[in-house]
């Protein structure tokens, strides 16, 4: 059977109509992974036996939840009890966790079946996937091009039909960038909505736990499962929402969509500019009013991000000292070492005020920018990346150029607001280009409404890479 196009909704409907069994679906995914993964390198660990066994068990069991029998892939930053979890880093090459984190537990309780662990930039440090200690993940749309990072394997698994959906982490764009580069939907939820418990910390005040899907509706369905307090992450907020699909299907009339002028005024490649302008016309045709807004501190975003994030990274990576598990610190990759050094420096006494403290003050201003913008608009829209995917190696030796590719994604992490990346078009050489919708804190429903309307008009999810 051809499972490459199936969405969560398709699979659930197919089970109901008895078009196929859970074992057939899971078996087909495993087959496809075994065929394509040697080329694409999306999975670090394929959990074949367990997936097939769980598929069989799920057929006998009563309906567990909204994801009953839906196969998925897990970014290797998420701890899975008994299944090797590497953070795509040599240090944790052989690490087998003693517990499973909240997001994965919730997904499995809702019936989802893990196919295995997905590749990414080691410790989620990177924008291209090239920092993985387990090799590059190739972009199925053109294997010479990077798939975006850090959640490289997650975007590729979903676009290549290696899993129905995949989990991801987004600290500065690590979900939205690869989603944009692989023609998939990527959600970075509001900070404080999905538990970080059991996900290896990168930068604690920025890490958001999200996911990749083929469609917006699928994305909403997963958030309905993963969102909400668990008593294990003190930064979570209680929300009353539980049905994130509620506004899906509603039109965009009377919605004001803001375009932050600082995001689009310069630096966009022609391809991106063209796709973005077309997207704005589509949104207008759907009834939304497009207005220009200003986020005056956008320029400071990258600078602030690259102080706060490495500071927290330097502290979070301290436990990997080689004493109790994993290999010793000499096995850290170049990028991890770079961030540990940057963060150690910016937190040092005598420098703290000039760097970390100042950055936190600007962070407050950035938050305020968004609050102000959302008094005039319902959601904001912008490209995810100033450029389409680039070639492997192009920025690998230029860390600053690599950092700047996050220019349009990091600020919402600093502000803590949600962002939804959806496919918007293709470059002249047929590489995916995505746009992102951004809303106020806990406005995910609204983002799904807008994303779904846009997606149903463009139907880009129907496009598949030729592998």
């Amino acid at each position, binding site marked *: 059977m051809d499972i490459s196009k199936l969405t969560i909704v398709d699979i659930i409907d197919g089970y109901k109509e008895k078009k196929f069994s859970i074992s057939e679906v899971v078996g087909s995914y495993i087959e496809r992974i075994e065929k394509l993964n040697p080329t694409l390198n999306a999975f670090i660990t394929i959990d074949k036996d367990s997936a097939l066994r769980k598929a069989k068990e799920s057929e006998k069991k009563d309906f567990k939840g909204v994801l009953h029998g839906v196969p998925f892939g897990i970014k290797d930053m998420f701890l899975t009890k008994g299944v090797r979890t590497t953070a795509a880093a040599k240090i*944790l090459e052989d690490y087998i*966790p003693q517990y499973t984190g909240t997001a994965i537990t919730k997904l499995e309780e809702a019936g989802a079946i893990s196919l295995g662990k997905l590749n990414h930039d080691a410790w989620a440090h990177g924008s291209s996937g090239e920092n993985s200690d387990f090799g590059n993940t190739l972009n199925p749309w053109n294997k010479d091009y990077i798939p975006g990072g850090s959640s490289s394997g997650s975007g590729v698994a979903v676009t290549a039909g290696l899993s129905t959906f995949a989990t991801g982490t987004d600290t500065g764009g690590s979900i939205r960038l690869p989603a944009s580069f692989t023609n998939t939907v990527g959600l970075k939820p509001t900070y404080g909505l999905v538990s970080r418990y059991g996900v290896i910390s990168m930068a604690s005040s920025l890490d958001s736990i999200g996911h990749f899907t083929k469609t917006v509706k699928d994305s909403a369905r997963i958030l309905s499962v993963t969102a909400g307090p668990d008593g294990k992450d003190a*930064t979570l907020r209680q929300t009353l929402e539980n049905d994130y699909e509620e506004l899906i299907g509603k039109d965009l009339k009377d919605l004001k969509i803001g375009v932050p002028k600082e995001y689009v005024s310069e630096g966009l490649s022609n391809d991106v500019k063209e796709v973005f302008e077309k997207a704005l016309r589509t949104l207008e045709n759907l009834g939304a009013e497009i207005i220009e807004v200003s986020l005056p501190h956008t320029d400071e975003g990258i600078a602030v991000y690259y102080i706060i994030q490495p500071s927290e990274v330097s*502290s979070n990576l301290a*436990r*990997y000292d080689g004493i109790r598990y994993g290999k010793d610190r000499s096995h850290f990759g170049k990028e991890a070492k770079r961030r540990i050094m940057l963060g150690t420096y910016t937190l040092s006494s005598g420098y703290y005020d000039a760097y970390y403290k100042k950055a936190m003050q600007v962070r407050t201003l950035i938050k305020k920018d968004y609050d102000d913008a959302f008094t005039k608009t319902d959601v904001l829209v912008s490209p995810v990346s100033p450029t389409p995917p680039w070639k492997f190696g192009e920025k690998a030796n230029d860390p600053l150029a690599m950092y700047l590719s996050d220019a349009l994604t990091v600020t919402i992490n600093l502000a803590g607001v949600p962002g939804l990346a959806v496919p918007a078009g293709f470059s002249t050489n047929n590489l995916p280009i995505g746009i992102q919708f951004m809303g106020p804190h806990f406005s995910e429903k609204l983002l799904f409404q807008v994303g779904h309307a846009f997606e149903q008009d463009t139907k880009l999810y129907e496009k598949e890479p030729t592998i």
Partner: protein
Amino acid sequence: MNDYETVVGLEIHVELSTITKMFCSCKTPTLQDKPNTRTCPVCLGLPGALPIPNLQAIEDCVKIGLALNCTINRNSFFERKNYFYPDLAKGFQTSQFLLPFGEKGYLDITVNGSPKRVGITRVHMEEDTGKLTHSSVNGREVSLIDFNRSGVPLVEIVTEPDIRSGEEAKVFLTELQKIIRYVGASDADMEKGHMRLEPNISLRNPGETSLPNYKVEVKNINSFRFVEKAIHYEQKRHKELLDKGETPTQETRGWNEFKNRTVSQRSKEEAHDYRYFPEPDIPPVTISDEQLDRLSKAIPELSQAKTKRLIDDLGLTPYNAEILSRDSETAQFFEDALEAGKPENINATTIANFMINKKIDIKKTTPSNFIKTIINQSSLVKIDQSVLEAAISKVLKENPDAVKSYKDGKTQILGFLIGQTKKVLPDANDTDQIRNKLQEMLQ
């Protein structure tokens, strides 16, 4: 020691007696627990584990702050103190730096009859580390880590360098221990390591007011007496060096209780850069009006105030008052007994003397039973035998019928005769003595 002034500041770590640890739901361990049995992903610092702060511990810390007359930082937060050590699971200790829950307080003590105020710099909340043991397993030298203690809530109390002698330090610590017990934050049991003490010691010329240009920290002392001894030892050691024109080395030393001296542990210590920054995994902590009000009210009359009241209002001797105020259970028992003794006209001094001299075990009796004991034992007046005999002769003479009845076997008439005797001798209250004498004389 006359030619130098001693300057001592104390750092005290108090292990709180909460049911669970600081940031996870593991039970706080006892010394009987096998190593690494009271652990979970959080206190082991496993990847992906996150802290949930223990509200009880935070409130206990605030209570200690209030009892030490501190300003309470109502909007505070936790910070990460970053350093490497094998017993530090996360590579950082979750602590407080910029805004401790309590700061700028003081504790008044009395040393040799003179009042003395010791400033409290800060009272902050943090977590304990694991414990390293160096031993030999199958002939191999190994270091073992027990993470049971990792994440146990600790309150760190830091004093101003106001202490001038070992004796002052000891008095201060004794008073502090009482306060911690009174507010119910910890058993403060020295033998169980609930209080770990670190004096920072230096000497300066008399009249100088600035801090000396060196200090010696003596780490992890577990008894007040050893703190006192360590200070004495260091005073002598520093004086010898200073007399020779040398400055004692700034270093960390340890107390060797067998050799009765301090020993150098780490010298030429580089200034640590702990790279403190706000703990991003824990939202800021706000102490609400309601909370502060409730915590203030929850602080009982503390030992010093109680001692003073027992002396001033109840007329106890300072000695008795101090003993009865040492811990809140004894003090409460005394107060309850005082209440129970009121109808019997038993005064505070009688109760105090009884509790102290007879070493009453307050766990084995109740205040009202204790009062009965006092009535039975203490207030018996021994009447002189000849006086008693004279009185009884008089009673027997005046009540021939009763005497006859008794001799006829109606021994219960004895009660009547005891009563008559007591009328003649209003002070006599030792019924046993009267009864015995009556029986003797009726033979």
